[in-house]
């Protein structure tokens, strides 16, 4: 890439030797090295940069060594111009924000972000063994125990994302990295998105082979269900060494995905077949959910304790400051109290980066008592082992669902629809919009168009619809959906404001918009 700014700078680079001195000369990455020389002092002071690990969309990934601790890191170099020219600033911004928030044994860690005029450096956890993709390509299909171990770690990471209201949307073996101990690290959150209360997602993204039918059809989805599908494809790939849906011709591929037709090889065990089939159900509402996967026998077998408990991240002493690590950080010259203070407020300063590098290189979740497989009764208490079965899986494929889960299942299948979303109408969409405008005018709202059938409306303070307690103005979103041919649904959702005021307002609006 032609970078005019680099011409003003001597071409010097960061390609390092094994010498402990900061960068030796080398001329391989002009545009990046130019930036570093000018502004990258912070990076060069903290890290010794050596060989290139790989190439991303916007620049190289290099191996670095944290000077103070000697721990290895991966440094993702993002060239600002490239990022901008590819219109990917949002993607990069999102990935940084999300990874800064997350701390999970099976999600790649971001230690710090160093910005220069030309580049953004993401200092990340170094994983030695590359992509799960290459591992499968090299080994072919895996035995069930090995596949299960990977799958348990993947599900645990995905569950953590979902719990933090993030949907990954690009899960595939290329984005699952393996560390030196063969542990999974979820990476590349560039296509991820936030799940907000009341809101569905639409953008179709990710690799077609791993994309859920509703995603490639451009339908609206909640979020978690599309990650479950991708994990189902990954599980298939782990166990079969091939993809469930594959075709060189994209329309053919999409047809296969939408029909949900795939072959299950004979070598698969009954439990793994069952799980794959449940994850690759075309109807997103009938598809198995992550809590249900956790209860599935294939998943629960040999589940290590640290993944069996609700918060694997708390097991790793993130709830408290590790005294030994603090001592180590203090020994390296940082003030003890200010380290603790920065940790508390999650300020990613040098001391905190040092703390986490030491901590993460010490902690190994997969060892000892917590790393050992939990007894099946520790995970699925209601599992009834067959008498005299000697620990064999004589129960059903899934445990007897709890009443709550049963309610959900039943609701999925035969919901008694006494309650319907918003109100329904047989008028034309244009007429429906007219009735909505008129209802908004009558209730003294201001509105703006968000999309063809979506608008946002606000009510000024003093209109009587604001929340007196929080002082927040009433704001709603109105959307028209198609229910079936010539039958439409008006949906209202609250964006802000008081609950009772909202119910009251909706009562007026729905009456004004109704057909009779």
């Amino acid at each position: 890439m032609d970078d005019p700014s680099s011409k003003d700078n001597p071409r010097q680079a960061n390609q390092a030797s094994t010498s402990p001195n900061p960068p030796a000369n080398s001329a391989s990455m002009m545009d990046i090295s130019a930036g570093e020389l000018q502004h990258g002092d912070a990076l060069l002071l903290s890290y010794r940069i050596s060989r290139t690990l790989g190439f991303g969309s916007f620049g190289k990934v290099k191996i670095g060594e944290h000077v103070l601790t000697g721990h290895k890191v991966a440094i993702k170099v993002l060239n600002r111009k490239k990022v901008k020219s590819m219109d990917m600033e949002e993607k990069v911004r999102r990935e940084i924000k999300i990874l800064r928030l997350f701390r999970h044994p099976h999600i790649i860690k971001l230690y710090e972000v160093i910005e220069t005029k030309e580049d953004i450096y993401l200092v990340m956890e170094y994983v030695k063994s590359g992509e799960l993709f290459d591992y499968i390509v090299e080994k072919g299909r895996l035995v069930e125990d090995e596949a299960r171990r990977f799958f348990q770690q993947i599900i645990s990471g995905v569950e953590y994302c979902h719990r933090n209201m993030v949907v990954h949307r690009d899960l595939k073996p290329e984005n699952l990295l393996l560390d030196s101990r063969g542990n999974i690290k979820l990476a590349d959150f560039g296509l991820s998105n936030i799940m907000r209360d009341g809101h569905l997602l639409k953008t179709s993204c990710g690799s077609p082979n791993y994309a859920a039918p509703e995603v490639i059809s451009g339908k609206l989805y909640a979020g978690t269900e599309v990650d479950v599908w991708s994990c189902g494809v990954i599980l298939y790939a782990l166990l079969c060494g091939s993809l469930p849906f594959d075709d060189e011709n994209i329309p053919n591929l999409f047809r296969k995905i939408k029909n949900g037709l795939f072959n299950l090889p004979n070598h698969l065990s009954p439990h793994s077949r069952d799980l794959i089939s449940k994850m690759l159900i075309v109807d997103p509402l009938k598809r198995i959910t992550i809590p249900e996967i956790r209860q599935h026998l294939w998943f629960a077998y040999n589940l290590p304790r640290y993944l069996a408990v609700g918060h694997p991240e708390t097991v790793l002493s993130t709830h408290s400051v590790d005294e030994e690590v603090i001592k180590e950080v203090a020994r390296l010259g940082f003030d003890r109290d200010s380290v603790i203070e920065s940790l508390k407020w999650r300020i990613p300063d040098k001391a905190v980066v040092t703390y986490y590098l030491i901590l993460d290189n010490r902690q190994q979740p997969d060892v000892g008592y917590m790393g050992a497989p939990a007894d099946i009764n520790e995970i699925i208490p209601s599992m009834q082992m067959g008498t005299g079965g000697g620990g064999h899986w004589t129960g059903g494929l899934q445990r007897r669902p709890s009443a709550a889960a049963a309610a959900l299942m039943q609701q999925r299948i035969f919901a008694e629809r006494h309650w319907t979303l918003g109100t329904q109408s047989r008028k034309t969409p244009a007429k429906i919009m007219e009735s909505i405008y008129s209802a908004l005018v009558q209730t003294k709202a201001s509105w703006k168009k968000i999309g063809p059938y979506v608008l946002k409306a606000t009510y000024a303070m003093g209109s009587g619809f604001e929340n007196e307690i929080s002082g927040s103005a009433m704001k709603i979103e109105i959307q028209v959906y198609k229910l079936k041919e010539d039958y439409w649904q008006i949906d209202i959702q609250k964006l802000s404001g008081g609950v009772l005021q909202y119910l009251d307002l909706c009562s007026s609006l729905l009456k004004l918009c109704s057909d009779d």
Partner: protein
Amino acid sequence: MGNAQGKYAPEGGEGPPQAGSSHGGSGPTVTAPISINPPQRTSPGARGSSVPGSPLTYGPQPLMEPFAVTHAASRNSSGQPPPQEFHGVAGWPQQGTLVPTVLIWSHGGDSVEVEGSWDNWTSRLTLLKSGKDFTVVKLLMPGVYQFKFIVDGTWKYAPDQSAIFDEMGNVNNVVEVQEYVPENIEGISSFDLPESPQSSYLNDRMTSEDFVKDPPLMPQHLNLTLLNVPQFVEAPATLPRPQHVILNHIYEETHKSNENTHVLGMTYRYKSKYVTTVLYKSK
């Protein structure tokens, strides 16, 4: 220590949604809170300190009266023996899920044990060394429990974990076990886009171009309102956890039986709970 004197007063399961009623619910645990009075307040009037639908999942003082195992077993409608480690919390629906919970001691020592209010401090569990910490995984029903470690024979609480005074003035650690790990919506708050200015609300109308295509198909997810969940005879107060997409949307009751009343409902998030509110308004 930790001798529980608390009274328990299971709150009745709530019926179908009533005007202004609220269903709690990070899972079913909230809809039938077991409320435990602080031990010093034993007058009948003090019972039920937690109001149905109150945002508190559990009473703040969770010590349990000692229950006989048979008591718990008698509530076990399916006739299965209760799981081995489960010794009580009567009044809890049988289908409540035991949650694997990890107890950690990370302050050294050679032998670490733990006792807790889950079985009224009657048994000791040995923690195993896992890395530099001592840990044990214990199955617990959702609820709040006090516990304390015995490190090389001495009672100790972990200063880095939640702790409270018991009625004797001892410090015990305390853990809240939730059936579901609640969603964390704090973290993504930084992703909120700035509010658009009032001046952008121009009351603009759709144009003919907007009507070229039909509106999008209604996503089926939005049909999964809690308001449509049938009641269970076994566990009338149990509700599944709603998907986030149904929150804040308005639902209308379409029964023609109440022609003169407009009945609307919605479910929204309050901290880690879900609240459903129903409005009855005369037409």
